[in-house]
C-alpha cells in the first residue's frame, strides 16, 4: 500500500479552550465544595464561584465546539477523524453507564441484602433483635430502622406517562436520523423538534412529580434508603435528560443553519446516541425504581 491513499490526520494547533475548561472545572469544584461545606450556615460565596464556573464552562464548550464545527465545515476532517469522534463518544457513554451502575448497585444491594438483613434475615436475627426490634423489612422502605416514615411513589400516573413520552422521543429521534440520512430536511426538522418537545415535557412532568413527592408524599432525598435511591437515580437521570435536550436544541439550531449532510453528521449522531442512552436508563429506572 502506498502512502498516497492515506489521508493526513488533522492535528489541531495549540488551543486555549482546554485550559479555560480546566479553570472552569476548578471554579466549579471549589465553588461547589465551599457551597456544600457551608450549607448549614448559608454563608460564603461558594454559590457564586460555582455559577461563575458553570458560566465559564458553557463559554468554553461554545468556543471549543465552534472550533470543531468550523474545522469540520472547512473539510479538514477525514473519515478517520470521524471514527475517532464516534469511538470517543461511544466509550464516553459507556463510562456514563458505569456511573449509573454504581447507583443501581446501591439500590439492588439495599433491596436484596441490607434491608432484609436489618429485618433479621439469614443469620442476622440477633442484629435485628438488639438494634431495631421494631423494624420490619419491606420495599419500598416506608419506615426506616430509626423510625422516620415516608410514602412510596406509584408507577402509574406521571411515571407511566413519562415512560411513554421518553420512549416515543427515542422513536422520533430515530426518524429524525433517518430523515437526515435521506436528506429530507423538512422532515428532519419536524422530528427533531418533536423530540425536543417530548424531552421538555418529560422534564416538566418530572419537576411536577418531585413537587408532589415532597409536598404530598413526604418523600424527600433524606427519607432513608428508599428516598435516597429514588432521588439519586431519577435526579441524575433528569440531569442527563436536561443535557440531552440542550444537545438536541443545539442540533436543531445547526440544522436550521444548514449544517450536516447525509454522510457527515457526527454531532447529530452522537446526540442521538446519547438520547437513546438516557432512554434506556429510564426504562431500567421505571422497572426497578417504580414498578418492582
Amino acid at each position: 500500500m502506498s502512502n498516497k491513499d492515506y489521508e493526513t490526520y488533522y492535528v489541531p494547533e495549540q488551543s486555549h479552550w482546554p485550559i479555560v475548561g480546566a479553570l472552569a472545572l476548578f471554579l466549579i469544584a471549589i465553588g461547589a465544595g465551599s457551597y456544600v461545606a457551608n450549607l448549614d450556615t448559608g454563608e460564603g460565596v461558594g454559590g457564586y464561584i460555582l455559577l461563575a464556573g458553570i458560566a465559564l464552562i458553557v463559554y468554553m464548550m461554545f468556543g471549543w465546539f465552534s472550533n470543531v464545527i468550523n474545522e469540520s465545515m472547512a473539510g479538514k476532517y477525514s473519515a478517520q477523524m470521524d471514527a475517532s469522534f464516534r469511538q470517543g463518544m461511544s466509550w464516553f457513554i459507556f463510562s456514563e453507564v458505569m456511573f449509573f451502575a454504581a447507583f443501581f448497585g446501591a439500590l439492588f444491594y439495599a433491596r436484596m441484602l441490607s434491608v432484609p438483613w436489618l429485618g433479621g434475615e439469614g443469620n442476622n436475627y440477633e442484629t435485628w433483635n438488639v438494634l431495631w426490634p421494631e423494624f420490619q423489612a419491606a420495599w419500598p422502605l416506608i419506615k426506616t430502622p430509626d423510625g422516620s416514615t415516608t410514602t412510596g411513589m406509584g408507577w402509574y400516573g406521571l411515571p407511566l406517562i413519562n415512560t411513554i413520552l421518553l420512549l416515543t422521543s427515542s422513536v422520533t429521534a430515530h426518524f429524525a436520523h433517518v430523515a437526515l440520512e435521506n436528506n429530507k430536511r423538512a422532515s428532519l426538522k419536524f422530528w427533531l423538534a418533536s423530540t425536543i418537545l417530548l424531552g421538555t415535557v418529560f422534564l416538566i412532568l418530572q419537576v411536577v412529580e418531585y413537587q408532589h413527592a415532597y409536598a404530598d408524599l413526604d418523600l424527600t432525598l433524606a427519607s432513608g434508603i428508599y428516598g435516597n435511591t429514588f432521588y439519586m437515580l431519577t435526579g441524575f437521570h433528569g440531569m442527563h435528560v436536561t443535557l440531552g435536550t440542550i444537545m438536541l436544541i443545539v442540533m436543531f439550531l445547526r440544522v436550521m443553519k444548514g449544517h450536516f449532510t447525509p454522510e457527515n453528521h457526527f454531532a447529530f449522531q452522537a446526540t442521538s446516541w446519547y438520547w437513546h442512552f438516557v432512554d434506556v436508563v429510564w426504562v431500567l429506572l421505571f422497572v426497578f425504581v417504580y414498578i418492582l
Partner: protein
Amino acid sequence: MTTVTDTMEHVDGHHDHHDHHADHKMTGIKRWLLTTNHKDIGTLYLWFSFIMLLTGGAMAMVIRAELFQPGLQIVEPDFFNQMTTVHGLIMVFGAIMPAFTGLANWMIPMMIGAPDMALPRLNNWSFWILPFAFGILLASLFMEGGGPNFGWTFYAPLSTTYSNGSTAFFVFAVHIMGISSIMGAINIIVTIMNMRAPGMTYMKMPLFVWTFFITAYLLIAVMPVLAGTVTMVLTDTYFGTSFFDAAGGGDPVLFQHIFWFFGHPEVYIMILPAFGIVSTTIPAFCRKPLFGYSSMVYATASIAFLSFIVWAHHMFTTGMPLAGELFFMYCTMLIAVPTGVKVFNWVATMWRGAISFETPMLFSIAFVILFTIGGFSGLMLAMTPVDFQYHDTYFVVAHFHYVLVTGSLFSIFAAVYYWLPKWTGHMYDEKLGKLHFWCSMISVNVLFFPMHFLGLAGMPRRIPDYALQFADFNKWVSIGGFAFGLSQLIFLALVIKCIRAGKQAEAKSWEGAEGLEWTVASPAPYHTFATPPKVD
C-alpha cells in the same frame, strides 16, 4: 518483528498548509498551557507525577519520623491520619497513574506510527485539570479542621458521620481526578483502535501498547464507579441520605463493596502498564524477542477480567456470608495463574539471552523479583482464614508497597531510563543511574521487608503509636524510608543532567531495542509519523 519501510519526516503533498503551521511550536509558558502535542503533554504528565512523588514522599517522611520510636512525639494523631490519607491519595492518583498516562502519551503514538493522540485537545484538558484537583486536595490540609483523615480508602462512616469540614473538597477533587482519568483513557483507546499504522494489526502491537489498551478499558469501567461512591459520601455527609447508614436502611459495608469494585481493578490499573514496560525492556537487554507474546496478551486480558470479580478479598472480615468468602477467595487465587504466566515468560525471555545490565534492565530485574514477592504476600492475604489475622496490619502495607513501589514505581523508573535518550537526545549518566538503582534497591527492602514481620506479629496499620515490642523493626523501617526518600534526589539530579547535556544518543539508543520509536531521530522530532509508516 516489525520492519519499517517509510519513516521519513516528510509532509504529505496535498495537505501541507496546516501541517506547516503546527510545526513551529510556541515558546515559554504558552507552549505548555496550550499544547496539543502528545510529547509535550507526556512531558507535563511525567513532571507532574514526579512533583507529586516528592510531595507524597515528604508526607511519608513525616509518617516514618513519627513511627521511628514508640510514643507520640512529632505530630498530633489527627495530623498523622491526614498524612497517611493524603500520602495514599497522592501516590495513587497523583504519582503512579499520571506517570503511566505520561508514558502512554509519549510512547503510544510513536509505537503505533500515529501522528499524535486521536483527540489532542481533549488530551490537554485531561492533563491540566489534574494540577487543579491536587491543588484543592493539598489546600484542604490547611483548612479549618484539617484535610481528609479517613484513609485513602475513605471508608464510611469515617468519611461521612465522623469526617471534618473539608470532605466536600475531597469529593470534588476526586471527581476531577476521575474526569481526567476517563478522558485520558478514552483518548488512549481511540488512538489505539483508530490510529495504528497500516499493517499493524492488533497482534503485532508492542505489548506495551496492549497493556495500556486494556488498562484504559479498566479505567473507563471503574472510575465512574468511584465518582458514584464519592457522590454518595457527599450526600450522606451533607444532604441527609443514608446510603452507608443502617439507621436509614443503608449499610456501611455497602460503601466497601462499591469502593472495592473500583478499588481492585484500580490496583491492576497501576500494574498492567508496568507489565507492558518490563515486557519491552527485558527483551531489549536480553537481545531476544519476548517469550510468549500472545500468551502475554491473553494473560493481561484475563487478569483484567478477573479483577472485576475479586473485590471482596478486601472485606473478608466484614462478616460476609460464607459463600461470598469462598467465592472471592478462589477467584483471587485464580489471578495468580495468569500472573504466573507472565513471570514465567519474563524469566524465559532472559533464559540464555545475551544480557547486559544497564539501569533500565536492573530496575526490570528487580521488578520481576520484588513484584513476585508482593504477589506471594497477596496470595497469603487471599486465604480467607489467614487474612482474618493479617487484615489491617502492616502485612497488608508490606504487600501493597511491594507491588506498588518495587512493582509499579520501579517499572516507571525502568521506562524513564529506557526512553530518556529518545526524549532528550542525550544518554543519561550510567554511573549515576546505577547508583540510584542500588541505593533504591537496598533501601526499599530495608523499608518494606520488616513490615511483613511487624504485620505477622500484629502491628495494626494507620496508628501513630505502637507497642514496645515493635520498636526495633520500626526503627529499621524508618531508616530505610529516609534512605529511599533521599535516593530519589539522585534520580532528579540525573534527569536534569540528562536534559541539559550528555553523550548524543543515536536513533536506536540500545543495541537490542525494537519498535517504531527507535526509527525516528533522538530526540524525537516534535511531530513524528505525519505520514504513517508501513508495517509488515
